[in-house]
């Protein structure tokens, strides 16, 4: 089930607005299921910026490498420290423990271009 406390993109990222103009970013359970065992995240550093729909990193699974695309634009405030040692945290819990970045949301209007949980569920169930 895709939690309805956040928004989704067709590239299988989620973004959760957390107040104070912050947004948490991760990849969906569907993406994780498709990737299989994740063994490495190539992520930018805090202080750098991401732009909506632009590539900001890579995820390496045993099967393949995939690009990560930012669901919203903003300056990176935090990078999940657990993922550098335990990238498999994303397999265990993509919604909470396996988050990737926290960014300062640059433009609320960008969220209009994302999907609701229901819309995302429809996309991934076909």
């Amino acid at each position: 089930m895709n939690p309805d406390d956040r928004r989704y993109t067709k590239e299988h990222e989620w973004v959760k607005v957390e107040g104070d103009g912050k947004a948490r970013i991760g990849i969906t359970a569907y993406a994780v299921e498709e990737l299989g065992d994740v063994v490495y995240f190539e992520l930018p550093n805090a202080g750098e910026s991401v732009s909506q729909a632009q590539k900001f990193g890579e995820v390496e699974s045993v099967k393949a490498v995939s690009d990560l695309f930012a669901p919203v634009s903003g300056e990176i405030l935090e990078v999940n420290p657990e993922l550098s040692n335990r990238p498999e945290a994303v397999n265990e819990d993509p919604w909470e423990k396996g988050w990737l970045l926290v960014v300062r949301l640059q433009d609320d209007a960008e969220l209009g271009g994302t999907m609701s949980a229901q819309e995302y569920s429809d996309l991934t169930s076909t």
Partner: protein
Amino acid sequence: MNAPLKRTPLFASHEALGARLVPFAGWGMPIQYQGILAEARAVRSASGIFDVSHMGRFFLQGSAATALLEWVVTNGVSDLEPGRARYTLLCNEAGGILDDAIFYRLEENQYLLVANAANTQTIWNWLQHWTRRFGEVEMADRTNETAMIACQGPDASGFLETLLGADVAPRPFRFAQVDIGGAPVMVARTGYTGEDGFEAILDAEQAVGLWARLLGLGAVPCGLGARDVLRLEAGLPLHGNDIDTETNPVEAGLERFVRWDKDFCGAEALRRAKEEGPRRLLAGFRVDGRNIPRPGYDIQNIDGRRVGTATSGGYSPSLDTNIGLGYVDPALATPDTTLVIDIRGRSIEAQVVALPFYSRRRMKP
């Protein structure tokens, strides 16, 4: 073009176990059940079972069977005793590798050849083609009427003992015709994981029963994903990746499976290739850092000049490092040489290491 995928006799068992099924060489096969890494680790520490029924199983018999095989395979046939099996390559006239396979001498004039699933048709046609020259060989493709289950890992031999009720397990590269719960089974001490274990060939109708028995003993179901991880750790080439018709056994480092003292298809070209010296060699390498080398990535020397291509690569759970195979300039194929892998534009250093990456004798004293 989209022919329906063939199903092995264990297809329903895979579905019941929640396997992720993918198309592979025309078959619907499990790529994973619980997860590739967990499955690979299970094989190294305990045991795993693989459905390998998609591999081609050809039975050859007749007075010319030995002569035919001796011609189409690079390894020796005549000096193999009945009850034993051998790994070999099959080459075309140019010395290119058509497939790698294991052949089993069942009787004096009777053999089983197990070919890779993707090459089943090629090898069948190849055998048919040469049969005309050698005469008296009766060939039967029993891929569909039989099943094949590989049980691999340190616990595998104990399972065999339990199933057979006695210590009659064949030694490595030997096989036996046994009875398991009333079903006749050919059990061979062979595999493709670098671990001890056995492969069982039996009638298709009996496959579900043996699979269930092995699960009951605690064997972990493993998919093609884990199989690929394990074979790479063991330094075993995968046909279609590391070897193919464009590569020969000399450059692939597989000369120990070539009998230079006999005549066989491709021998002339291979002798020439050996004499001239290989232009490239298959090398194993470990990558510094956590980016994974994958097939097709360029390999460079430390000056950034392209010296080859990666043919396999992945994360090794047993070594907790990233490893790969690739063809490089022969001067750069010796262990401890530093290479650079172009991982999507990033230059990542790698060290050439001796194969296999993983050996159960070395790792587990």
